[in-house]
């Protein structure tokens, strides 16, 4: 039976991703080993101190007394069987720790990126359509201001206004604790909690899409085939939707794929402020705690997500760009 081209393509992408992921994992491992101190230091710091034998015993327990390359080899050979190891900080298997957080992060990233993408693209198209007009200036300036505002600043201001002053939105967390909502109430509850973090994240990324889309539309609008369509008697709206948009979206889609991992990094601060139990915050904590296995797990997961997202954006790209055929 012939393998469908999409599958072969997916397989090829997977094979290509393997060396990159190995590179990332080894690199991160060694990098983190360069950092002063280890998990035990962090744990002891957290406990408020411990005596020397205790510390010694923990190190042996965690295998931290071994040479670095032994530790690396142990880790990598476990990883090859998709065993992420044990988090000494959370006293749980890393896989459990990660799965607990993955949902929140994916939800946050997916909603904020899709909002950023759609709104950014729409505003960018409008701004380009009325290039150099008042509308354009207002949209572009707002975009730049949001872009220039540090995310924590924006988050704090929002929290101050909407939670404390107006009391409309919950301060943080992912759901009302001890609310015990189920069904749609639960969905609504989570949605309420996600409004501000999503807004904070998406406003920043929105401006990227906005600016790119604007210049992309301006660029495409100058192309010959748009002139052809005009010469056919097509009106501006038709030009925009049938001729310009789809071509102008191409670079924006590429950015979408590239930006995914940045958003995860960007969510560190937002998750911290809004107390969202997500991977961004977990990553930050893991660095500080030298929680090697957890951090490595996050990075691994993140690489997989990025590979998948890039694969999907490539598919989307191919869908949008008829010149590309997957084979």
């Amino acid at each position, binding site marked *: 039976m012939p393998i469908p081209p999409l599958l072969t393509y997916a397989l090829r992408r997977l094979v290509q991703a393997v060396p990159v992921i190995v590179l990332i994992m080894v690199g991160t491992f060694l990098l983190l080993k360069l950092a002063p101190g280890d998990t035990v230091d962090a744990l002891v710091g957290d406990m408020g101190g411990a005596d020397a034998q205790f510390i010694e015993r923990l190190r042996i327990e965690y295998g931290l007394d071994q040479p670095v390359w032994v530790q690396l080899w142990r880790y990598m050979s476990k990883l090859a069987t998709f065993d992420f190891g044990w988090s000494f900080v959370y006293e749980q298997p890393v896989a459990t720790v990660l799965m607990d957080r993955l949902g929140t992060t994916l939800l946050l990233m997916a909603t904020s990126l899709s909002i950023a993408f759609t709104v950014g693209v729409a505003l960018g198209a409008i701004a380009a359509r009325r290039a150099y007009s008042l509308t354009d200036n207002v949209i572009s300036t707002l975009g730049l201001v949001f872009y220039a505002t540090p995310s924590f600043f924006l988050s704090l201001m929002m929290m101050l206004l909407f939670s404390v002053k107006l009391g409309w939105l919950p301060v943080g967390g992912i759901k009302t604790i001890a609310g015990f909502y189920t069904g749609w109430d639960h969905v609504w509850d989570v949605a309420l909690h996600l409004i501000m973090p999503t807004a904070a994240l998406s406003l920043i990324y929105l401006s990227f899409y906005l600016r790119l889309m604007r210049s992309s539309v301006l660029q495409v609008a100058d192309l010959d*085939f748009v002139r052809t369509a005009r010469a056919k008697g097509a009106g501006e709206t038709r030009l925009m939707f049938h001729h310009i948009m789809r*071509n102008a979206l191409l670079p924006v889609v590429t950015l979408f794929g590239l930006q995914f991992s940045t958003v995860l990094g960007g969510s560190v601060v937002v998750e911290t402020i809004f107390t969202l139990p997500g991977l961004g915050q977990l990553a930050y904590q893991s660095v500080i705690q030298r929680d090697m296995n957890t951090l490595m797990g996050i990075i691994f997961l993140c690489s997989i997500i990025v590979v998948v997202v890039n694969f999907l954006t490539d598919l989307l790209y191919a869908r949008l760009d008829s010149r590309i055929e997957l084979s």
Partner: protein
Amino acid sequence: MSQDRQDTAPILEIRDLKIALPEGSDRPFALDGLSLRVNPGEIVCMVGESGSGKSLSAGAVMRLLPEPHVYVADGSIHFEGDDLLAKSEAEMRGIRGNRISMIFQEPMTALNPQKTVGWQIDEVLKLHMPAKRAERRKHALDMLARVQIPDPESAYNAYPHQISGGQRQRVMIAMALALSPRLMIADEPTTALDVTTQLQILKLIRELQREDGAGILFITHDFGVVAEIADHVVVLRHGEVVEQGPAAQVLNDPRHPYTQALIASVPDLAPPAPKPLSDSPVVLKGTGLKKTFAARGGLLTGKRKAVTAVKDLSFALRRGETLGVVGESGSGKTTVSRLVTRLLEADSGAVELDGADLLACTPAQMRAMRKNIQMVFQDPMASLNPRKRVVDLIAQGPIVHGANPAEARENARELLELVELSPAAANRFPHEFSGGQRQRIGIARALALEPKVIVADEPVSALDVSVQAQVLKLLADLRDRMNLSLLFVTHDLRVAAQLCDSVIVMQKGEIVESGTAAEVFTNPQHPYTQTLMSSIPGRDWTPPVRNTDAA
């Protein structure tokens, strides 16, 4: 005849049209006082060098000028008696594509890459024809058949990148003619095409127009094309009409000195008498050259098909000889020129320069050898580093090869004079020159190393005819004066005929015919060569005796 023209009601009448350019442009008006008329069933050719305002006049008729920077300052445009300039944008939309249609130069970019051919033809129908989908589809398929596209059904569903350049231009024409417009404007519709395709398209336009009786405003800069197709000719220069009249008269008996000069620049097809070269030594010899572009595909495209650009090619170039390499697009001409200079590594074969095999040299040896074999490139803008001053561009070669920089620069100034440029040019940047001047700089750069062989890849095809003639003349002069050998790659048979001693004709990477220019041009043997020769536009027209000094 001129009496007849005035009597019929014109489809298009332009009077005293003035188009203003934005401040800071090289002239205030792109068009200054253009008047012309297009009658039904008539092809009016607008000729003129680059920048003379041809495209903008077409834009003005379509009301598609890039306003507000460029706008109609004065004059009138009447289409079938209606004042187009007074129409609203909505009214204009009703006219565009319906009663006036347009074909553009680049079939590559003029079609939306993301929509199927069928969709794009359908769009024009949808906009102007109140008809059901199936009906429109049928009409579109009819149109595709009319423009002689082999398999209209599959072309209908194809994306532009899936059909050839010639077919794309046919699609454009089908689109333009779909609603039987009264006026069709064609802005250099064949310039980007191969000679053979060009001729087919020209014929097609002509036939279709005969059937429909539309008027055509045909823009071109090629007098060959004019001779092929025009009923009436308008010659533009710097936005002013210098001469207009019936085709026969303008072509064969130009009145204005400018027109005369232009026509005189058109190379005629009679090759020069063969030079006695058989006893000069062979300076450059290629044997069994082969190049396959094995396809390392992109991530998304996967592996591409391997393309054999050149297979088993051999030639010999003697001292003082000019060897022309001709053939249509994609036949491997450029590949040959790059193999010979080792800008591309050949898969197999040898290139001997004065007996030494270039392809066997180490990189260091090769760098030293390059002194002897220099190139002149096609695009005079792209081949000069825009960030370098002319003097540095010319002196670069000698300096790399160990010359004293100060002396090399001094030499460079002298070379500028040799290529007939003022030494004042030395300190300027490439963008401050016209195309022809840049090509002169390119020639000076090649000469600076005092090479034995110069390889020129389409050195004049990016230039206007008038300038083309001058650059060719310069090249010929220098060749004769310095006893250079020239490997001259071109797709323009007229140019080849004028300059080359011998010619090799390539098709799909292979030599199909070779011999002296005189033999090949007067008595082509291979069927492919014969088709090529018969496709030269205006081949039956011999430019009138040169009565002006073009240089």
